[in-house]
């Protein structure tokens, strides 16, 4: 079962499922898992609107692959693991990300990585997806400048 983390993880999970069906002939159930209510920075950043949690079935005894766009501190994944444990007991949980940009703050590592992208902490990494943003791409921008100077490595997802 593929579970995307809103917003862009959900679109990525759907793409992965479509590819799996195309190459392997397997239909893998896809869902979404919102982590907002489990975040540890709610009190630091203030409230944010909730995303959708939609399970295609029970997670008990399934192999669940969490899908997200960027892996950074690992805190979102920690929240996702907590959220998942309240929904059931999967047989195994794995993690697939499009971009791993390093700078982990928790002992978390991805099982499947689209691209390792060495970055500095002064940069933002944004993944753009046609479903959400109208086009595909990965953008690295400097955080300090008012006008983001885009030294972008545009790459097809």
């Amino acid at each position, binding site marked *: 079962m593929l579970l995307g983390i809103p917003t862009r993880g959900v679109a990525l999970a759907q793409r992965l499922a479509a590819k799996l069906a195309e190459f392997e002939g397997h239909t893998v159930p896809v869902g979404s898992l919102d982590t907002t209510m*489990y975040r540890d920075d709610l009190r630091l950043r203030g409230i944010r609107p909730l995303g959708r949690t939609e399970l295609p079935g029970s997670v008990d005894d399934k192999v669940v692959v969490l899908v997200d766009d960027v892996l950074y501190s690992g805190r979102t994944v920690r929240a996702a693991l907590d959220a998942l444990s309240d929904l059931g007991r999967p047989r195994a949980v794995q993690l697939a990300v499009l971009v791993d940009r390093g700078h982990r703050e928790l002992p978390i590592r991805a099982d499947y990585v689209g691209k390792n992208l060495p970055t500095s902490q002064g940069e933002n990494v944004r993944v753009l997806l046609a479903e959400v943003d109208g086009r595909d791409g990965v953008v690295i921008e400097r955080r300090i400048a008012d006008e983001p100077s885009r030294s972008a490595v545009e790459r097809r997802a």
Partner: protein
Amino acid sequence: MDRHLLSAADLSREEATLVLDTAEEMALVGDRTVKKLPTLRGRTVVNLFFEDSTRTRTSFEVAAKRLSADVITFSAKGSSVSKGESLKDTALTLEAMGADGVICRHSASGAPHRLANWIHGSVVNAGDGTHEHPTQALLDAFTMRRRLGRLEGLSVTIVGDVLHSRVARSNVLLLSTLGASVTLVAPPTLLPVGIDAWPAEVSYDLDATLPKSDVVMMLRVQRERMSASYFPTVREYSRRYGLDANRVGMLPDHAIVMHPGPMVRGMEIASEVADGLRSTIVEQVANGVSVRMAVLYLLLGGSDA
């Protein structure tokens, strides 16, 4: 959103929609095996109830507990209020114990507003006198949206004791913000002064209003607040303003019947109607928990501003 929720008029259309959308997600938690979220862990919510209540008090309590907050329920009976302690002193005592949120029900209109000036935490109005009951209006709007798919353009008829009803006032304010049109139907004696200024139509004729209503909401006749006789007999009232099976037959096919509870069967609503298929009365109670979870999350979930 503002730090407090005191009146349904405090909410803009965007904020009210945010509450309803959040409640939609919270409703999913009620269907799970583990009906709990860690979001308000370590926060304390005080249920400050100076007036009797079953639904609202337990609903807030369940909502806060599902979000992992610590809940202290305080009722005026059996507390120092009966020894003559004032509202302010009670509030300051609770504040000193570290309450992050106070949910207040009081028989005096405006009590939660006073409270909001005295304490640092968030105050949620859970019904003050004959003034307002914003979370009830939110859960009613949520129920309508779930059953009928929209709020914009709905015709909502609110029938009964509008004079003493905080539910009616909050609903009128919220529903007009959200784009529904409200008609109030009541005997002239049970309409408040200044009703012309409300964003609602007024009618004395229930039978003429029913065929064009998408929602009909019955209000309880609040005898405990009545010091004079507002209508000749119960029989006459229920014959002119009570909802029985015949009147339900006059409604359009998709229309729903609501009641904020507690209801007096045989007075404003016939038993067969209350238990009928169009009735959302039990659903309203379930939705109340989701909506109150949303309100608590939006008020207390973020940073201490």
